[in-house]
């Protein structure tokens, strides 16, 4: 059995990704077919954000990964230089 924190974090991730998936599916696929005066539209941002937010988040993720790789490479090069 995984530890309690592992289980909490794991199932938390599952729940989060499920909520995100349902919300995003509704936003992209279901909303165009609902009448513009239906109450559900108040829970969703304008449609442009459905593309802008994931693209921005993806770019941010790539930025963090790149910075992390640079940091680790720099650290390891400093170590080998020192041992010389």
């Amino acid at each position, binding site marked *: *059995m*995984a*530890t309690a924190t*592992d*289980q909490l*974090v*794991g*199932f*938390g*991730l*599952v729940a*989060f*990704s*499920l909520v*995100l*998936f349902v919300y*995003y*599916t509704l936003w*992209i*696929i279901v909303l*165009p*077919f609902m009448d513009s005066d239906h109450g559900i539209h108040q829970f969703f941002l304008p*449609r442009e954000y*459905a*593309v802008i937010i*994931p*693209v921005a988040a*993806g770019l941010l993720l790539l930025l963090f990964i790149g910075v992390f790789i640079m940091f680790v490479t720099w650290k390891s090069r400093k170590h080998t230089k020192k041992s010389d």
Partner: protein
Amino acid sequence: MTKLAQWLCGLALLGSAWAALALAPPGLQPPGPLRQALLPLPVYLLVAFGCYSLATVGYRLATFNDCEEAAAELQEHIRAARADLRRRGLRLGAE
């Protein structure tokens, strides 16, 4: 054909189908709501795949089978082996 080539062919097929529908001239465009749902489809599939990956990682983290006794036993073995090697004169880096 390699797996990579297969995946690329599949992606190219789906991509060209999407592009054909998305970039169609105003006469041949699919009807209103359908087109509105179709245009962000690549981003949607990417986000859906990301959600699936996150859920898989979380689920496997939560259902992983820790064997704490085996881990403790292994640490004991490591400690014993270290002591033994040190007695025989081998210098070990990490402690």
